[in-house]
Every structure is written in C-alpha cells, then in structure tokens.
C-alpha cells in the first residue's frame, strides 16, 4: 500500500508537485499528509502507552521476557558453612530447578529451603527469581522483602515491602508486615495506617489490633493502647506478646496488679506474623542440627512429641555421640510416654560423658516415669554433687523423695530449691503439696498462694488455695480462688466438686 501518486494536474514542469497550496488538490494532498502524521503519532502514542503500562506494572514486560528466559538456581555462598544434610537438600533442589528453570514454584521452594536454614541472602535472591517468573503471586514478593531485611538490608527490605504493599493493597498479611516494619523505624503514622488496613481487611484477626496497640504505646497513648490490646487479647488469648503489651499499657495507667499479671504472662513470648502458605511450608525444610533441635523443642512444647522424636532420631544418626541430641531425644520420649527409651538414651549419654549435669536431671524424670524413685534419687544425688548450688538438682531430689513418700526430706530439698532458684514456680506447688501431706495447712496455703501468683493459669494452685482456704474457714479467699479456677477450667471435675462443696458449706 504505497502512497497515491500525486495527480498529474498538480505536477509542475519538473514533474514535481506544485508548491501552490491553495488549490483543491493541494488541500487534499495536505489533508492526506495530516492524516498520515496523525496516524503515525497515534501509533507511537499507543506503543508508548503500552510500554508505560508494562513498566508501571512492575516491569511486567521484563518479567514476561524472563518467563521465556529461564533463570539459573541461586547457589549457596562460597563461604557458607553448611550442615551436610542442609547442603544435600539444597543441592537436590538446585538440580530440580536446573531441570525446570522457568518454574516459579521450584525457585520458590529453593528459597524456602534457604529461609528455613537461615541463609538469608540466598533466600532473598531465590524469592526474587520466583517472583520474576510469577509476578502475580504476592507471597514470593513479601518473603523476598522479608529475606532482604533479614540479610541485613533493612532499609532496602522496607522499600521492597512498601512496593509489595502498594501492588497488593488488599492482602492483610502484607499490610501487617508493612506495619511491623514501619514500627521498627518509628514511622508511627504510616505503621498505624498499615495496621488499620489490616484490621479493615481482616477484622477477626488480632494482628491489626495488636499493631495499633503498639503504635499507641509508642505514642504514649496508654489508655487507647490498653483498649486496642484488650481487643487483641480477646481475639488471641494465647498470644503472649499481646499480654505483654497489654501489661505495658496497664502499668502506665496505674493498673499495677493487672500489669504484673499480664507482663508475667507475656514476657519472652514469640512474636508472629499473619500466616501464609510459605510460613506453613518452612518447617518441612528445617535440616541444620541447631535448627532441628530448636524445632524439636517447639514441637514438644506444642504437644507433638512424635514429630520431635522423628527429628531427633535422625539427628542421632548424624551425631551418635552428641549428648545434647541424646538428652533432647530422651525428653521427647518422655513426652511420648516411652520412659524406657528415654532412660536408654540417657544412659548412652552418661556413658559418653558422665559429668553432664542435664543427663542426671533427665534421668531422674525418666526413672520417676518408670516408677523407680529409688534409682531417681540416686541420680538426683549425683546431680547435686555436680552442681550443689543449682536449684534444679535439689528439685529433682525432692521429686524423687516425694515419690518415695519421704515428705519431710522432700520439704527440706524443696526449701533448698526455692532458696537457690525462685524462678521455679513448680517447686512452690510441690512444697505446698509436701506441707499439706505433713499436715501443715497454713504453710501449704502460703506456698499454694505463691504458686498461684507465679502461675496465674495453673489450675492445681487455685484448687489448692481453694481447698485449704475452705478447710481453714477462709471463705472469701476460697471464693476468689474458686472463681479463678472456674475461669481457667470451668468444666473440670475438681472445679465442679469444689463449687458444690463451697455452695454446701456457705449455703450459697
């Protein structure tokens, strides 16, 4: 489709188009040129608009190009000191990625492996690869940003989180992470906005409220903080950090006793982000020994001793002479109610190193579970020989003595325990029990009360206080303890019995 030849009528002597433009033909010609120019301009505008659109969509065109350009897997740094099992896992996944270099999922799995084993720079780069290949999936991007921060580039990580939050404004997990990161930088207004968006997007999650409460604490608006954190605690009653923060707010509005209670409940609890599928997947890839031990302990704490045992048995194969592994394995078996296996592991540990204090302490527990208190007592005495100033050793002895019903001696050992280690609230509970068995109800009440103060959510302490208070005719005290016990476990058989008994005696 060439341009039309100019009309013959409009040609001059040299056969070139006439410059006279006031003719009809000239005007037609000029009009055609205008149309052509406008057409070119329109095409150019459309093309540039397309480029702009692509660029403003986070370099979509570049990403699309990357989809057809496979990405090599990220390899661990040259200096990385890796546990052999971690290295094996990484190399296995690298091979998978090499066979499927355009797969966001496989790059992402490699990233998760790196994150699970705290290889943050490698995790960051692998998440970037996954997000390049699958730019629509926010989860790669937010974890890339988090890994960037964890790798030491906090400012860059913050910028990345901001970008992701802008790109995916309706994902509450992203808004929450943004809020948390902004809070770290004391950008309180921006953090507040992010947490408020979290609440708006996910009003049934405690995360946003707790974030808003933290912002209020930073602003020293303690009354407002208390209200927000109370809401957070209502939504997540088991989240320790929420309790700690609520205590922090209470102390500044002079609700001291409540503050003490909340602070004690929440101190040293783990902070957590709103969950996503990567966070769920990470534990599958824990491989390093230290990480494995920590994971096993977490599993034990969360009531999954079978899984802990599985991890620790693998660790034992790798480190058969590691007394730390053997001790942890023994604890896991104890939790799994397999005390014989626990004892066996501990005796192995003892053979490797007979001077390890924790081995004796754990042996006491195993023997007690095996209903062999005499053997337990022997091990507790060895523990005391090794560490006479450590309360735990005396506590073990007391437990063995209690199992032997030698309450007088057990009381002496427990008094020594609490003298050496006031941090052990269980010791007060046992001391109370000993005193009760010895007929010393006043002392028993004193120690049950201490145990209840130290462990506000411990049912046995409240039951102890209530029972003895009733026996001593201290009805107000008994009622308070009963109310607390009902709050902890309203349907517990002992609580119901106490309730009936209290009602009969007081006529209530």
């Amino acid at each position: 489709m060439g341009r039309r030849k100019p009309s013959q009528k409009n040609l001059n002597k040299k056969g070139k188009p006439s410059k006279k433009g006031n003719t009809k033909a000239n005007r037609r010609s000029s009009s055609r040129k205008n149309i052509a120019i406008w057409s070119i301009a329109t095409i150019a505008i459309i093309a540039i608009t397309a480029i702009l659109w692509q660029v403003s969509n986070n370099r979509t065109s570049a990403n699309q190009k990357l989809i057809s350009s496979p990405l090599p897997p990220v390899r661990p740094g040259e200096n990385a000191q890796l546990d052999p099992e971690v290295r094996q896992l990484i190399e296995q996944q690298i091979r998978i990625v090499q066979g499927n270099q355009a797969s966001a999922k496989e790059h992402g799995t490699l990233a998760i492996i790196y994150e699970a084993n705290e290889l943050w720079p490698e995790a960051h780069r692998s998440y970037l690869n996954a997000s390049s290949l699958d730019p629509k999936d926010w989860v790669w991007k937010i974890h890339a940003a988090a890994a960037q921060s964890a790798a030491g580039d906090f400012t860059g990580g913050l910028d990345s989180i901001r970008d992701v939050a802008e790109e995916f404004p309706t994902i509450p997990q992203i808004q929450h992470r943004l809020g948390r990161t902004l809070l770290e930088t004391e950008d309180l207004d921006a953090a507040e906005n992010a947490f408020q968006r979290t609440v708006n997007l996910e009003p049934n999650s405690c995360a946003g409220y707790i974030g808003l409460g933290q912002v209020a604490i930073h602003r020293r608006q303690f009354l407002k903080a208390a209200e927000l954190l109370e809401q957070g605690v209502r939504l997540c009653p088991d989240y320790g950090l929420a309790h700690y923060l609520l205590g922090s707010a209470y102390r500044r509005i002079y609700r001291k006793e409540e503050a003490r209670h909340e602070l004690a409940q929440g101190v040293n609890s783990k902070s957590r982000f709103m969950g996503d599928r990567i966070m769920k997947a990470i534990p599958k890839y824990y491989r390093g020994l230290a990480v494995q031990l920590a994971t096993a302990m977490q599993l034990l704490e969360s009531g999954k001793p079978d899984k802990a045992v599985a991890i620790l048995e693998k660790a034992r194969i790798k480190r058969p002479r590691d007394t730390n592994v053997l001790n942890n394995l023994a604890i896991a078996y104890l939790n799994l109610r397999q005390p014989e296996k626990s004892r066996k592991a501990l005796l192995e540990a003892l053979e490797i190193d007979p001077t390890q204090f924790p081995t004796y302490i754990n042996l006491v527990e195993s023997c007690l579970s095996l209903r062999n208190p005499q053997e337990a007592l022997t091990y507790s005495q060895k523990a005391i020989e090794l560490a006479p100033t450590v309360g735990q050793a005396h506590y073990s002895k007391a437990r063995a003595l209690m199992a032997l019903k030698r309450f007088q001696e057990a009381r002496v050992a427990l008094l020594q325990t609490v003298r050496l280690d006031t941090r052990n609230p269980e010791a007060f509970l046992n001391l109370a029990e000993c005193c009760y068995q010895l007929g010393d109800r006043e002392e028993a009440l004193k120690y049950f009360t201490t145990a209840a103060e130290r462990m506000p959510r411990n049912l046995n302490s409240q039951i102890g206080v209530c029972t003895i208070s009733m026996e001593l005719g201290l009805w107000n005290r008994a009622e308070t303890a009963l109310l607390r016990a009902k709050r902890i476990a309203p349907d517990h058989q002992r609580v119901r019995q106490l309730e009936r008994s209290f009602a009969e005696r007081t006529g209530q």
Partner: protein
Amino acid sequence: MILQPMIHTRRAATLAAPIAIVLVFVAIALIITYRSSSNTTAINNTSSTTPDTTSESSATPWFVDAADNAGLSFVYEPGPKRHWFPEIMGGGVCLIDYDKDSYLDIYFVQGGDLDPEANNTHGNVMYRNLGPDKVLQIAGSGGERALRFEDVTDKTKVGDTGYGMGCTVGDFDADGWDDIYVTNVGQNTLYRNNQDGTFSNITDSAGVGDERWGASAAFLDFDRDGLLDLFVVNYVGWSIKRNLECFSGAGERQFCSPNNYNAPVADNLYRNNGDGTFTDVAEAAGIGQVFGNGLGVACADFDANGWVDIYVANDGMANQLWLNQGDGTFVDEALLSGSAVNVRGKTEAGMGVQAVDVDDDGDMDIFLSHLRNESNTFYVNDGGWFDDMTARMGLAATSIDLTGFGLAFEDFNNDGYQDLYIVNGRVVRWEPTVSKDDPYAEPNLLFAAKGAKEGTSFQEVSPPGGTPDNLIFTSRAMATGDLDNDGGVDAVVVNRSAPANLLRNVVNHRGRWVSFDVRLADGSVALYAMVSMETGGRKQSRMVQRAYSYCASGDARVHFGIGSADKIDRVTVKWPGESKPDTFGPFKINHIYTLTQNR
C-alpha cells in the same frame, strides 16, 4: 503570498501537535523507566543501613590509637582454643589514679589459662601514667603532647594471676586512696592501696573472695553509713567439669551460650563492716534469692527516693532493677518498670550497661549493649517508668548486626551533648567474618548526639568508630576518662588476643569544657551524686560514677562539654541521700575543679 505562510503554519502546527504529544509521552516514559530502575537499585542496595556520614565536617577522626606510642602493650590472652566458655568473655580494664598524681593510670585484667594444671603465669598489669613532666614528643604525633605509660605491675604488686574478667575501683577503707577489686573465673581479689605505690591482697581477710564466675562489680554505699559496700555480678554456674560442647550447624565447635548451661547464679552484695572486712548480705537483702546470668552493672537512684539502686544486665534473661527500700533490702521491679525486657517483651543478651541522664532531665536512663540480631537497647526513664526508645534515638538499626560489649556515654566533642562509643566482638562464629585474622572481630561504633527540643537522638560518626582506620577486634571492656587532662575524654579498650587500644581524643575544633572532681565532706569520691551545670541558659546533668560499661571502671570526674560558652554560671550538686543540694560557681572554662560537700 499571504496564504503560504499560513498553510506552512498550519502544517507546522499539524506536525507539532502530535510530535509534542509523542515527546511528552517519551519524556514520561523515560521518567518512569528511570524511577523504576532507581527502585531496583534501592532493593539491591545492601549497604543502605549505613547512615549518611559523608559530610566533610564529620569525616575527620575523633580518636587515634596511641597505645603503641604510649608504651601500652597489653594483650588479653584467653588461653588455648578449647572453647571453654570463659575464654570468649574477658577481660577488663580500670582507670585509677593510684598514686594520686592527678593522672589516671590503667589497670588491665588478664585471662591466661583456665586449666589448673597449666599454672597460669599471665597476670594483671598496671600501667602508670607518667604525667605532664615526662610527656614526650613522639614522632608522627604532630608535635602534640603525647601520653606515655610504664608497666609498674611488679612494683605495685597487683599482678593477680586468677583467670580475670573485670575490675572496679573504690576507696573502700576511706583512707583517700583508691583500692581495686578484681573479678575472676574463680576467686575474686581485693587489693588495698598501701598509699606508697604498692597494694596488698587482702581478699581472704576481707571476706570478698567469692569463687563463682564474677563479671562486673561496683562499689556503692547502699545503706548510707558512709562506707563503700560492694556489689558483684556473677555470670553462670560454670566449671571445667561442667563445660559443654556446642557446635555450629556445620558441626564446628562453637562457644556455648549461657542458656545451654541453664545455670544462672545469684550476685553478691557485700556490706562494708568498717574494719577492713565485708559481710555478704545478698540473701538478707533479697538479692541472693534471685538468679541471673549477670554481666553488667549500673548503680543510680533510679526511682529518686534518695537511696542508690542497682541495675543488673543479664545475658539471655530478664534484667534486674533492684530498688533500694532504704531498710537494707531490695525489690526487683524491672518487669513492672519496663526495664527488664525490650519493647517487644523479649529478653536480650545484656552485656555492657550504663546509667546515664542522656536527656538532661535529672533522672537516670539505662543503655545496654547486646548480641547480634538484637539491637542495643535504650530505656528512657520517665519518672521511674522506663520506655524502650532505642529506635527513636537512632540506635537500633546500626547495632543489629554486631555484638556489643563495652560502652560509654561521654561528650567527646565537648558540644554539650553526650556521645556514645560502643566496642563490639562476636561470641560465636558466622559468615562473613569482618577480619581474616580473627573470626570474632567486629568494628566499633561511635555516635554523635544530636540534642533537640523534641528529644536527643544519635547519628553514627564517620569515619566509623571515629578512628582513621576502623579498629576491628574482638573487643570487650572499655573505660573512658581524660587521661592527659587536656579536656578531651579518651578511652581504653581491651581486645581478645590483640593489643589494647588507647583512643586519644583528637576531635577537631573540640568545644570548651570543665571537669569536676566531686568529693564528700570526708574527702571520698561522691559516688552517685548528681551534678547539674547551667551555662548559656541550658542545663546539663551528669552522675558521678565509676562502674559502667562492661567489666570496667572509668574516670570518676564528671566532664562537661560547653561548646562555645565562655563561663560557667552555676553548678549544683545533689549529694546521695541528701535533700539539700549545694551550689557552686561561677567557674572558668577549660579547668578541672574539685567540689567538696559543705557540711
């Protein structure tokens, strides 16, 4: 003729409009593309946490390491590489004018070999400051006065060969001469100053030779009887028999953490009996019943009730704030007060600590140095309630990758605001290392204070660590003081398996200053007295203290920088336990004065 230009004009317009639109689009495209590429750069910028310290004025060094020239050659020897826990934690340093020549001498606490069969020959070392009469012109020092020290360990008889951790200084027998208490892994040592350039080891007769693993210690008069008592922080119930083996993920031997041992211990509170002996009253005082992995200690009247309190930095456990009840007992109110754990409710690895009134409001704030992945933490005191203000003060991000030990707030540049120096060094190995020679070595941090109405904050100084070449060692104790009495606060740093640093203050255009040696009526140092100074309408507040930082003891004199002020209007001293303050002044600038309590 008339139309042609018109047509031409029309054609030009016809062309110009689309071209202009295209150009605008191209420009926008370029801008967006540029911004987009800028974002990418930011994401990949791994060094962006470093504050902007490129300004010319801040790029000149604040210190030079003058140890070599000054004749200091102390190296802390941790012992053979057995990964026994104490081998990564020492050692200590104290500044003491033991001969009363008005120049601070330096006492280093040495490690050695923990194995009892090795017969440890490494002892502590005393360096005497030769003072102004013997100042030498050192090559390369620019003709300035140079510091010079001589090793007087044998002469002074203070070469304790226990496996040393730290030390503290105080005149416990109130004879006007400073004595030394040394903490060891094993029996601690008390040296009494004989007033003749020698010391006597009176540990056994004084009854202060606790055999546990002592860390930091502080003298204080907790019962206000006019005699200095002694508080000793103990770390972990460790012994060679109980040493654990810990490993990295790759199976390499590592030093264990205190939590591996789960053997926290109680601290000592020794009451001075006034006859050269002490009685450990920790249990009766309520302190001996609570256990912790203590490393640092700072004393001050935190709740402003007239009685000096004790703050203990615990490693991996909640810190303790022992509030003095005035009846010989203490109550730990750290958790309720907000100074036990950080703003997220997490315990941190407390190492060094200092009580400091950084905002000059008259009450004592608390700063602690911590492990890697925890920031250092600043608890600001607001009427007895503490708020973790670390991030707001600009002290969080810079410390997150380092393990802090010794620290000091001092007005190094004499601008009227207290700056902050922190020395670092790892306790476990990880990659990448900073030094090829020492896997635990880390650089120091120096922050300049930025005072403002809306609150004090800090900015990292360039060059990093304030020295021409950043000093990268496994640093532990640091003590600060004006070693050459020139009005610039200097520092001494102990390094593990490397020479100690003597950081001589060389701040360019340093401000004017005044220092006060604050004494009670009986002539002893007025420990924990609050000194406030007004000049040019601004009030500064400092506490008389010696025991701060980590396993260290510094200059007891209070030092004020005053910028360009030309006179000191008034100085007020609030004596410990006294309700009526004394007022002194006016004073000339650039002088050291002694202020004595009026009675």
